């Protein structure tokens, strides 16, 4: 056990994680506990989007450029579900409905995200897969680029460019943790991200379908040979990954109002994380969410706002020079080979 621990500490992943923890501790002593709290909350949200992206990479071998748009769909659906509910509440106060209204909105977004994901697989990826699997990674990547352009401008054309936002999901004073005020929405978003990720984890580890998804990510032919319905699993995976992004978008509607390009930042951040830890590595994406969050928080704290884009990028480039397949290594063969 201790041997394994020492070996882990000396691996790239171990070094980076330990270094991150050390940095976080130093910064917390230097500036105060809000650094830790902010990192934890931002990290949970980033992880949710990154895990979905990693899932698509790992299972479908799709390097998605359109993932942020499912985040956008999440914000859009949550807005159009929550706003009428809230208007109704304004005239007919009901504590129970006020409690569940945000949950209804987020659930609706989850369903819509899953439907959009499934449709994408059925209408776009499946036809492409049937036609040719040659140069798949690059072609599917370009396909997602086209899809992103389509969805962003489709939003603009149909729903307009205005910012569709809400004041908040939950009324009430902010919660205080370690002398830091945290709004209820933010706390809820954090808890939700943790719950969703845990549920996702349990699902992948223990259920038959979860195992089948992992099996497909490791060997597609092998999956067919044991009787897994590949196309069903691919549709399901796409729906699951997109649903995760939509849930993230919906639960963050108070922070990111819905507008056509709202998904871009989520996309950038998810890609940062996924590249940093290694393509398709789902555990890595979880950890990476928190590391990138820390990086962002520290950059704003010590260097200045606006640099939280430049500094993490530069660091990631540095990491990639030394560890081209990411700090956790990569589980995905296909992506690397092409």
């Amino acid at each position, binding site marked *: 056990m201790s041997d394994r621990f020492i070996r882990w500490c000396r691996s790239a992943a171990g070094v980076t994680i330990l270094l991150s923890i050390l940095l976080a501790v130093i910064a917390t002593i230097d*500036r*105060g506990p*809000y*650094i830790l709290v*902010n990192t934890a*909350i*931002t990290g949970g949200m980033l992880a949710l989007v990154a895990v979905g992206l990693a899932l698509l990479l790992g299972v479908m071998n799709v390097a998605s450029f359109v993932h942020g748009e499912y985040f956008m769909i999440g914000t859009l659906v949550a807005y159009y579900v929550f706003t009428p509910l809230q208007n109704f509440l304004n005239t007919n106060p009901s504590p129970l409905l006020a409690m569940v209204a945000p949950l209804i909105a987020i659930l609706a977004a989850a369903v819509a995200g899953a439907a959009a994901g499934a449709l994408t697989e059925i209408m776009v990826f499946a036809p492409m897969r049937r036609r040719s699997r040659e140069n798949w990674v690059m072609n599917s990547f370009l396909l997602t680029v086209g899809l992103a352009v389509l969805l962003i401008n489709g939003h*603009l054309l149909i729903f*307009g*460019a*205005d*910012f569709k*936002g*809400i*004041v*908040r999901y939950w009324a009430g004073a*902010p919660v205080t943790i370690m002398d*830091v*005020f*945290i*709004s209820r929405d*933010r706390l809820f978003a954090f808890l939700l991200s943790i719950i969703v990720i845990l549920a996702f984890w349990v699902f992948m580890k223990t259920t038959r379908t979860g195992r089948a998804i992992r099996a497909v990510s490791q060997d597609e032919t092998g999956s067919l040979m044991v009787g897994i319905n590949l196309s069903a699993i691919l549709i399901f995976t796409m729906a699951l990954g997109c649903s995760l992004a939509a849930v993230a978008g919906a639960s963050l509607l*108070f*922070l*990111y*109002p819905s*507008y056509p*390009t709202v998904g*871009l*930042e989520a996309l950038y951040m998810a890609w940062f994380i996924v590249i940093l830890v290694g393509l398709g590595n789902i555990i890595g994406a979880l950890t990476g969410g928190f590391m990138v969050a820390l990086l*962002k*928080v520290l950059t*704003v*704290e010590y260097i*200045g*706002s*606006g640099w*939280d*884009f430049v500094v993490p990028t530069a660091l990631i480039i540095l990491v990639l020079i030394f560890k081209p397949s990411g700090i956790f290594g990569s589980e995905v063969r296909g992506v690397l080979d092409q």
Partner: protein
Amino acid sequence: MRRRFWTVIVAGILSIGLAAAPAAAVDKTLKVGVLGPFTGPSAKNGAEFKASVEMAMEKIDYKIGDYKIELVWIDSQSDPAKATSAYAEAVERMGIECAMQNWHSSVAVAAMDVAAQYKVPHWFGFGATEVVNEKWKADPEKYSYWGGKGWPIPAKMAVGYVECLDNAIEKGTWKPENKKVGIYGEDTDWGRSLGGALKQMFADKGWEIVSEDYFPITQTDFYPLLSKYKTAGVSVLAGTSTAAPTMTAFVKQAGEVGLKSVIIADGLGWMGDWYKMAGPASNGVLDMIPQLTTPEAKKWAEDIQAKYGFNPSPSAGGLCYDGTNMFIKILKRTLEKYGELNKENIHKIFVEEIHTGQLTFSKADGALIMNEYRYNADSVPDPVVGKDAYYFPVIQYTDGKGAIVYPDDWKEKDFEAKK
């Protein structure tokens, strides 16, 4: 297969050629370009522009004398390069004789050259920053076609905030713990320009500038930044963003982290529907925004709400509406003086009557927002700034409604610090 392919190609080329053929000119029609960000990140402003211009034109039934006005929408897409292309197209293909409005400074800088190149008089372009003025002043004759800006440089306006706060300290209505101020802003020409002006003014009045942060216009997570300000214990946070999600998120999250500072959020109220997103966290926030005080102004806002389904902002839609009406006045004057509406004559009026301060547009003419829009040789391209002319009062918000707290002779209530 092959034949069909060529047919498609030929048909495509022909249709491009046909569609691109110059539109036939009709007598006694004046084509007026309206430059604005109708798509892209600032499309909301573009929508306010469009509604306001249409409202103003409907009032005169698109007629000036025996001229019929035809509007040509020029989409800047918030991109100087694309804006110049679209502008040139509007001049050549659509045959516009004059144009008005604009939102970004970067677009203004590029569009000024197009206006000068085609000698198209352009009226009331926003795009406030110094870079526009510097360019204008480098060659006043050439850029006289960029007739008059719709918004003066931030430095001329923003001093009101500092005066308002100092005034409150002097009177004893506010006792800050320290004189520390944090400057923030969106990382754009506008944000940096206003941020720089505020920094200078606060420093001149003996305030300590703790930090200066500019963030991407799309940023909406300010917890780390605001936590930093909280730790630093600043009494005032001063800055701006033109993007509604950014500005409202900033204000909302400042409330969430329990920041006790006075917040100056210049531009919070620019978007008509801001309160839907900012909520009660905006109580006590300072902004500098013209108010819809007169019954005509309130009627105008209701009309827009009824017709276009959004609540217009005085500073985007309202100023644009006034600018359009002033332009109508200019056109009428041109027709009266020269008997014909064309580029040259409109430009002559710019030079002879606007830039000399003869032709103005005031509340008496039907201005909704400012007392008087007036330009003179010293001020151009900016309008004259002053309480009797172009002036923004400082307002403080309570439950989404702004009340003027400065200048004293306009004030509707006293400045109140957060408890």
